């Protein structure tokens, strides 16, 4: 037993919002939904209203001069949450336009209270409250000022046990001087930014009394189902603790087969579970095929996997190698989940949300991101600018969940410098596998090497490999040559003379 009052947290009906609010919306709270025109304020308010309203505790939606109610109703009907059968039943609209135009704030307050007393609503929305605030500026002397109006409104609505949302168009610069910002228990700020061809919507919980919201800007998307928020994933100190996967956790130090026996041996016995692997190589070197082998091998061991595709589609994998057809079948059978994304306006948190959702759904333990370059291109411009930081968060969160992930990175073969990622992200990964083309004795040969496996011994060999009907086949080392990566290999076998290999153009 405790003397403290328990605040019930209401589920908002907006995917992802409860999480960023810190567990839901405090019951009887007095909230402001603020932002620029077109940010999604009305949609958010309506979606929450339909989720929270019930026949016993209906919702009252006060429309004030702003968006004409007839248009608001017309457009809101397009969302799946808008249940026509509940309008005038558990969801009631009250137009206050005339009251605002004709009356004083005192009269307006009385009208609102009258409606609230008659309905006993669980939810009250005033849209747009900005219009009410503007009316306050025109109020005759002796009338309530805005501050007293807001305070009395908050007291009355809270006393009537209503959870309230005031919806208003505000600029962030107004936050310090407007009384409604002080009185409100919760403040949700919506914004949208356009950068080149991409538009990104963001939401910030600027305050939420009585609980701890997730700080920072969270991206959200508006679809036919309304708003979906993608909570910003924050990397905590616990993220690098022993894996606690969505499915069964990997045993510590467990090694996972990559699907190519010789490569497993090169890695020192497979990939340590929960590691991130960067697979870098030029176009056509076989990265996607090796990634597909990695997932197919997981399925063979009863470990579902996920592939996030940014360039290819599942049917394309049938073209990448002899086992590709089987890979497409794994996707069709649901043993490998395929995430295909919208290009150009993606946020890292949206991607992460989709991946984590798929991990939980499939109980997946392996993940492929094919490719990092495609991923970067799919992001909205604003997120490309801090791609490294975003990738760091994603890798840390996913490997922290015990997921073993492989990321492909396309690199142009350069014979003057050795890089593993165009994003400077190689240091983020636990292991690096490199693929290259080399020209030897008039042939273009594929070679592969393990560059690093954190905390583990691994092969230092540069091995030839081929893509055959059996998949990837690792071949011989090039012990008789040196300088392969320079593009000018020389034979060390020749006695008395050194055979210089032709340099690629």
């Amino acid at each position, binding site marked *: 037993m405790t003397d403290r009052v328990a605040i019930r947290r209401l589920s908002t009906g907006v995917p992802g919002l409860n999480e960023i609010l810190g567990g839901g919306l405090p019951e009887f709270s007095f909230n402001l939904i603020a932002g620029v025109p077109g940010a999604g304020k009305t949609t958010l308010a309506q979606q929450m209203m339909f989720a929270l309203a019930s026949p016993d505790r209906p919702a009252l939606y006060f*429309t004030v001069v702003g968006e*004409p*109610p*007839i*248009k608001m*109703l*017309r457009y809101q*009907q397009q969302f799946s949450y808008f249940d*026509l*059968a509940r*309008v*005038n039943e558990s969801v*009631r*609209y*009250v*137009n206050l*336009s*005339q009251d605002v135009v004709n009356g004083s704030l005192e009269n307006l307050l009385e009208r609102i209270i009258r409606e609230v007393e008659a309905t006993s609503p669980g939810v009250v929305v005033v849209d747009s409250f900005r219009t009410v605030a503007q009316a306050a500026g025109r109020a005759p002397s002796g009338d309530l000022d805005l501050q007293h109006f807001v305070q009395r409104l908050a007291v009355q609505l809270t006393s009537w046990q209503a959870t309230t949302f005031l919806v208003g168009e505000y600029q962030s610069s107004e936050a310090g001087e407007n009384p409604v910002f002080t009185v409100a228990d919760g403040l949700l700020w919506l914004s949208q930014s356009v950068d080149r061809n991409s538009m990104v919507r963001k939401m910030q919980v600027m305050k939420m009394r009585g609980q701890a919201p997730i700080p920072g800007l969270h991206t959200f998307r508006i679809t036919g189902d309304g708003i979906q928020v993608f909570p910003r994933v924050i990397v905590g100190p616990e993220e690098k603790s022993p894996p606690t996967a969505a499915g069964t956790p990997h045993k510590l130090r467990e090694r996972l087969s990559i699907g190519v026996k010789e490569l497993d041996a090169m890695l020192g016995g497979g990939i340590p579970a929960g590691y991130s692997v960067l697979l870098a190589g030029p176009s056509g070197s076989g990265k996607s095929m090796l990634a597909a082998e990695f997932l197919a091998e997981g399925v063979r061991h009863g470990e579902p996997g996920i592939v996030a595709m940014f360039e290819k589609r599942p049917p394309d994998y049938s073209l990448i190698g002899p086992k590709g057809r089987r890979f497409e079948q794994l996707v069709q059978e649901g043993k490998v989940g395929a995430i295909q994304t919208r290009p150009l306006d993606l946020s890292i948190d949206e991607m992460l949300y989709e991946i984590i959702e798929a991990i939980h759904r499939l109980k997946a333990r392996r993940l492929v991101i094919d490719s990092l370059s495609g991923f970067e291109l799919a992001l909205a411009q604003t997120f490309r600018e801090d791609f490294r930081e975003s990738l760091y968060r994603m890798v840390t969160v996913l490997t922290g969940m015990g997921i073993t992930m492989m990321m492909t990175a396309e690199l142009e073969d350069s014979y003057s410098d050795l890089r593993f990622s165009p994003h400077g992200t190689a240091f983020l990964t636990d292991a690096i596998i490199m693929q290259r083309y080399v020209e030897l004795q008039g042939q273009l040969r594929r070679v592969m090497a393990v560059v690093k496996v954190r905390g583990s011994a691994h092969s230092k060999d540069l091995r030839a490999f081929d893509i055959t009907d059996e998949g990837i086949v690792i071949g011989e080392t090039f012990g008789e040559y040196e300088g392969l990566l320079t593009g000018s290999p020389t034979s060390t076998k020749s006695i008395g003379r050194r055979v210089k290999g032709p340099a690629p153009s």
Partner: protein
Amino acid sequence: MTGPQAAALQIARRALAQRAGPHTGAGAIAVAARRAYDDLIRVSAPLIGEVGLEALTGRALHLAQRSYPWLIPTPEPEQSQEAFAHFLTCLEKQEPAVAAEAAEAVFALVSGLFVTFIGDSLTAGILKKAWPDAFADASTGEK
């Protein structure tokens, strides 16, 4: 005439008939139209605002002028409240049959505009609440 238009006309006819009672003169039709309009305001104003209904009514009266040229627009069309009062004055000057037909047409046009903007379901909800007697008759008629 489409099915929905015919149905809207029939509902308007019943609503007006209920409000006119046994009286059949043009004046009685104008009084019935006023009552039907007041009922519509009472129910729809909370949802779309009085101004919203007045705007739709103004549009309906404009459309009705094609069939009823004697519906001369008011000098200030945005004053839809006055436009409806003017419409009633015009009605009173017509033959009872013409007045009844025009009143039905205007209300059918208003409900048609409702459907255009907020859809069948919400419109049906408004009309049933505003003119329950028109629908009670309809259900009896269907039996």
